[in-house]
């Protein structure tokens, strides 16, 4: 077998072309195999996901309301009217702003925490690794009810734990969830706490594939730990990093549970998220407008993802 070089890919796997005369036969075989491997997934996907998506996209261009669900074709095509309504809605604009802040703060923090935990568990800890792994993952699987109770207690203005501790050093803590200025930030911290476990286990999987031989060789050359991290580990986990970045961003752009359970969008719309507002519109039966809001969210997500792919030089 060839020498163990973990090529830092980031490209889509293309390397030197094989000899010309074998190309077309191999190319055909490759294409056949590719299609065969792809087919089951694509078929199921087309039926159960893509088709409903197309239907709902069409719906966002109509004035469909819940009263039309029995007769979905008896609606009027209204073009971009729903999208205009969404833009004109000050609450939706606020929701978009809140979501943006949430993502800009939450994603880097979550990824850093997840990567840090994964590195620590991968290299620094031998025994008890399982215990730490499950422990750090536990917020992801804890019932949101328990999470809400404990965090509400932490953030309570008078007797809450955070303000009590702050009081020991003489700081008068604010009403974290009730003050417009701090509510969103509190939810960011809570979300980071809740979700870093998922990033962690994905990074752990990616780190496992990093060749320890490279590290040994570099250490023999005298490279320090940080240098090794930057030059070997980071590039090796680039595909993983892209994945975590994209999926965490997608998740956070659609954040819903935290404001829904903790503050219900308040106080005074300081924590309402785009997804939550869309959910409300669905609840009110404004399917056309809600669809438009959902697809606006989708456009933003798509843009952000595109930028991330470009940044990591993926195709």
């Amino acid at each position, binding site marked *: 077998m060839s020498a163990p070089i973990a090529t830092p890919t980031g490209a889509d796997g293309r390397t030197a072309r094989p000899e010309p005369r074998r190309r*077309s036969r191999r*190319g*055909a075989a490759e*294409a056949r195999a590719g*299609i065969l491997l792809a087919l089951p997934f694509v078929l199921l996907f087309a039926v159960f996901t893509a088709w409903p998506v*197309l*239907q709902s*996209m*069409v719906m966002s*261009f*109509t004035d469909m*309301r*819940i*009263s039309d*669900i*029995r007769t979905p*074709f*008896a*609606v*009027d*095509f209204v073009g971009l009217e729903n999208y205009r309504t969404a833009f004109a809605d000050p*609450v939706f604009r606020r929701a978009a702003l809140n979501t943006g802040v949430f993502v800009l703060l939450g994603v880097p923090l979550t990824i850093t925490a997840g990567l840090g935990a994964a590195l620590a568990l991968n290299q620094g800890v031998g025994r008890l690794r399982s215990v730490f792994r499950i422990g750090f993952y536990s917020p992801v699987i804890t019932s949101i009810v328990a999470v809400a*109770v404990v965090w*509400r207690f932490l953030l*309570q*203005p*008078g007797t809450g734990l955070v303000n009590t501790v702050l009081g020991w050093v003489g700081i008068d803590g604010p*009403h974290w*969830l*009730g*003050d417009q200025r701090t509510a969103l930030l509190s939810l960011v911290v809570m979300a980071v706490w809740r979700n870093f476990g998922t990033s962690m286990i994905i990074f752990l999987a990616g780190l496992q594939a990093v060749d320890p031989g490279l590290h040994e060789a570099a250490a023999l050359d005298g490279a320090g730990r940080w240098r090794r991290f930057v030059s070997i580990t980071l590039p090796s986990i680039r595909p993983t990093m892209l994945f975590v970045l994209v999926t965490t961003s997608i998740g956070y752009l659609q954040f819903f549970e935290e404001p829904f359970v*903790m503050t*219900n969008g*308040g*106080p*005074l*719309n300081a924590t309402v998220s785009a997804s939550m507002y869309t959910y*409300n519109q669905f*609840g*009110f*039966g*404004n399917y056309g407008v809600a669809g438009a809001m959902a697809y606006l969210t989708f456009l933003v997500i798509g843009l952000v993802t595109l930028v991330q792919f470009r940044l990591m030089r993926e195709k």
Partner: protein
Amino acid sequence: MSLTARPTRRTVAGLGAAAALGLLAACGRPDETSGGEDAAPAEPIAEGPATGSLTVWAMGAEGEKLPELIKGFQEQNPDVTVEVTPVPWDSAHDKFTSAIAAGTAPDVAQVGSTWMAEFVGLDALEPTPEEVATDDYFAGALESVTVDGTVYGVPWYVETRVVFYRTDLAEKAGISEPPTDWDGLVALAQAYQEQADADWGISLQPGGTGSWQTLMPLIWSGGGNVVDEAGTAFTFESAQNEEALAYYQSYFTDGLANPAPADGTTEQDFVSGKVPMFISGPWMMSAVEAVGGEGFADKYGVFTMPAKETSSSFLGGANLGVFQGTENRDAAWKLVQHLSTPEVQVEWFGLSTDLPSLQQGWEDETVASNEKFEVFRTQLDTALAPPVVATWEQVAASFDAQIEEVCKNDLSPADALAATQSEAQGIGTGA
């Protein structure tokens, strides 16, 4: 397949666009037929015992206990099989709307009181046939099942809101009789704060989801309303509404109620005396007694909402509805009839402590025995249901947001009501 063929992006995009356009082209509302027709009157129910099979959906605890109650029905109608599916309250509305969309709705179901207008608008419910008696229901309860003058389904059980207060702390503050008017309530709140060491005189919701349920009774109490008699237009702006909202605001501006309360502390604060007064429904009785422990039931009481012109309150609960498209209409309505007899309502109270919606049901001893329930009984006479308008949820959310501005940001009641009125008009009544 040739490697060099690049039909890819353009062709598929074209296909996708064609499909989408095709779907859009198939759309179009039919021209307006004559508007304002009354719903066709319901056909009578066939005579004789019920036969066939029925599917019934009921939520939460009601869903679990309903089979007990139906035993009597099955004894009287041995040829019918009733399948009860309990449905969680959480997201029940979504389950119903999806089922209506796909045509998989049940024959009979428990319907939340605020969903009636919406479901009628979806042509999902059947109007109530004449054989089903509707004269003995509480007025507010009957209102909640009446859409555009036609009755759909029947009220099943009711709940209403009253003021919970610490009697022992009131004694300490020198007040032995509960207040009966707006000024009296303010006085009690002040007394709690000044003479009974309470942090806040009363717990009121400063806007936010559901706050309208506490404000509306005050509006009604002063003679105002947010919809007109016919239920076709919104009337948020009026002198009475403004007065009620200003009264509500005064609790926050005068320091009697907390404008930034922490969540989920109502029971605890009530038991500890920090906030010895709040407005809520019958389920809170067991909640505060659970926190307060033994003997706490003697330390608190309830009284009807303070009156300006009348003492009004919010009426909630749930209704029973028969869905259009049921294949066993006769049996469905017979079941509804059975559940609406006073005896069965009393039996239901025994099983679930849900308050009967029939006035006769209250004459039974088991219901009339608890003295706190007496207060609820009295309140039910004047309790009103929220406007029976298909878009109420959305309008109410708008209203809640304005109430929040009033309570936390000192927005003037007049401006808040004007803003709500314009938003409500934009939303429309969904008629």
